[in-house]
């Protein structure tokens, strides 16, 4: 049940355009389903990619890829681009007979001879659309065991292997392979992987747009759920998912922040010794299966440091967690571990609410540069030197023109964050009056009302 799309690498919301003025007839857009388009392109040796118009269901076959000269990728929400994997991968599958990459240097650094030439080395391979012997790219037209090769431009060396790595060896995985972004698309038993963006033959929750940071590209092996190793759903209806064979890196990568007294981000680097849940329930040891059975066996998750019964985050959950010693409660977060300060250091201070602050601090507590008060981009300000002429809204300095009780602020240069508070703290010794006094009248509109009858028959 392989999809015809399995032969292609996709780029969503992208169109591949030709910069040359004249396009061949191949370029016209024909209406058909995306699978049909893929099938037809696969069958045609002169088709290397296709633009698919999601809106009109138009299929536009292309004789080039993004690596070809005079082409350009262009963002276009209506189009998805599919390019044949053989032209895109820098690694080989099997002996590499289908390799159509652009490597043109041998393992010893010699430049390859053009296939159409018979000098300096005469040979019997004539280029055709089918065999892909174009320019001077490494190819394997004779099923050489050592993979793609070429005749060299050195008269003394007739031919040489290009030493292009097999896909399973080209990119290694560290830890449990959550970071693996290589091109293996078969399981260790040789089954072809199902595309992550398809729900057939196996229905699954790992839709690529739900997990943008997991790079669930095409049908490549990935590890989005912190399994032992990268895996994929298979195209065999009888076998839901299987591990893939991928080489382990020799060197360990230490990209995450290791902390012991607090945790950063999701706490995947937390290595402290807290061993109870937020509400004080002792954690179960990772090396036992009682009271809860689980697959987070310390030996299989070496780099997750599943020591003793310490709170850890081996699976990318929201925070460090553990299996609890209560049979009725399988897992619980350790939210009581404090978060490390994720704010920048402050150098200045303000009095009161900072409404009289006239300093030069111009970055937010996250370190983002402030937008100039007089600018209209990236945010159109509701408060500006024109609307608040007395507020000293100079340059992009932090100010408090609306007497915000949380201190000086500014519009930010981050398009996703309209405003934020600044990297300034209240001055030491400044007495903040207590708020524990009643406010005046309380008026509410439509909010806060509920059908009390539902309360009674809630069950």
């Amino acid at each position, binding site marked *: 049940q392989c999809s015809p799309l399995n032969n292609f690498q996709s780029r969503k919301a992208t169109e591949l355009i030709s910069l040359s003025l004249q396009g061949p007839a191949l370029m016209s857009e024909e209406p058909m389903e995306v699978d049909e388009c893929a099938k037809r392109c696969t069958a045609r040796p002169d088709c290397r990619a296709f633009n698919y118009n999601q809106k009109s269901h138009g299929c536009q076959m292309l004789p080039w890829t993004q690596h070809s000269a005079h082409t350009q990728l262009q963002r276009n929400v209506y189009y998805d681009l599919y390019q044949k994997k053989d032209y895109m991968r820098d690694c080989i599958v099997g002996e590499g007979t289908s390799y159509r990459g652009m490597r043109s240097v041998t393992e010893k650094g010699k430049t390859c001879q053009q296939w159409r030439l018979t000098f300096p080395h005469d040979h019997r391979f004539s280029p055709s659309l089918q065999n892909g012997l174009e320019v001077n790219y490494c190819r394997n037209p004779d099923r050489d065991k050592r993979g793609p090769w070429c005749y060299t431009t050195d008269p003394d060396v007739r031919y040489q292997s290009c030493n292009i790595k097999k896909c399973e060896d080209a990119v290694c995985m560290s830890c449990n392979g959550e970071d693996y972004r290589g091109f293996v698309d078969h399981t260790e038993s040789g089954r072809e992987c199902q595309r992550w963006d398809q729900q057939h033959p196996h229905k699954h929750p790992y839709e690529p747009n739900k997990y943008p940071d997991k790079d669930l590209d095409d049908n490549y092996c990935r590890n989005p759920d912190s399994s032992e190793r990268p895996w994929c759903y298979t195209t065999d209806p009888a076998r839901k998912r299987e591990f893939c064979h991928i080489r382990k890196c020799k060197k360990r990568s230490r990209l995450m922040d290791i902390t012991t007294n607090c945790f950063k981000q999701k706490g995947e680097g937390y290595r402290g010794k807290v061993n109870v849940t937020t509400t004080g329930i002792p954690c179960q040891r990772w090396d036992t299966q009682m009271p809860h059975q689980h697959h987070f066996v310390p030996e299989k998750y070496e780099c997750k440091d599943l020591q003793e019964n310490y709170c850890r985050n081996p699976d990318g959950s929201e925070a460090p967690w553990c299996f609890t010693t209560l049979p*009725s*409660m399988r897992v619980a977060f350790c939210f009581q571990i404090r978060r490390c300060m994720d704010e920048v250091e402050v150098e200045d201070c303000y009095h009161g609410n900072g409404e009289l602050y006239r300093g030069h601090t111009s970055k937010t507590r996250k370190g983002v540069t402030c937008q100039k008060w007089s600018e209209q981009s990236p945010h159109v300000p509701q408060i500006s030197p024109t609307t608040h002429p007395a507020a000293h809204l100079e340059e992009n300095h932090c100010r408090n023109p609306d007497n915000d009780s949380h201190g000086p602020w500014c519009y930010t240069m981050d398009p996703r964050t309209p405003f934020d508070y600044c990297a300034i703290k209240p001055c030491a010794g400044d007495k903040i009056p207590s708020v524990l006094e009643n406010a005046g009248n*309380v008026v509410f509109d439509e909010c806060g*009302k509920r059908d009390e009858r539902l309360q009674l028959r809630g069950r």
Partner: protein
Amino acid sequence: IVGGRPGNSPWTVSIRNREGVHFCGGSLVKEQWVISTRQCFSSCDADLSGYEVQLGTLFKDPKPSDPDKQAIPILKIICGPSESQLVMLKLVRPATLNKRVALICLPPERYIVPENTECEIAGWGETRGTGDETVLNVARLPVMSNKKCSMVHRGKVKDSELCTAPLKAGVGACEGDYGGPLACLTHDCWVLEGVTTPSRVCARKDQPATFVRVSLYVDWINKVMKM
């Protein structure tokens, strides 16, 4: 909720991760805005694509065919003033208000809830064997003054915190309820006076529970929605 009863809290939302698993609570303050706690999220600019809030259902895991269920993806997260521990979640689209989904009022700025005001906590978290964990549970708690609370805690409770009195039978928020509301009835309206934050006390009989005092952050909440 420990010591609660199945009930109706139409502003309480369930926050779900990419696997659809409930991990924290929240309160619907505007059709497109939910308030929760910082501790539930990895960072103030976390990519929450795939995360969603679930509203309108009493069941923790309702059937997909449940006509009352609304599931709305989260568009972005905005962290509150540093000491607040609050976050606001903007939803991809507005929730539809009906019998099962309602907004909760925000308190007036710096409003202090009078002592002994009856309030409610609600959530789909742990019950510690005191109730049905498949449904939304609600429990009533009376407000305690910060002065008394500080005495029991043997330490100063901050102005930005709000306490509820301990009851003889253990009643309180527990794992999975964090981020949810402490709603108090004022002038016939339910008002979001507090937000449940993680603490080491899960319905301990002799200890008051503390919440984030929302009234101190109403200016920020309104500013975020306005901007």
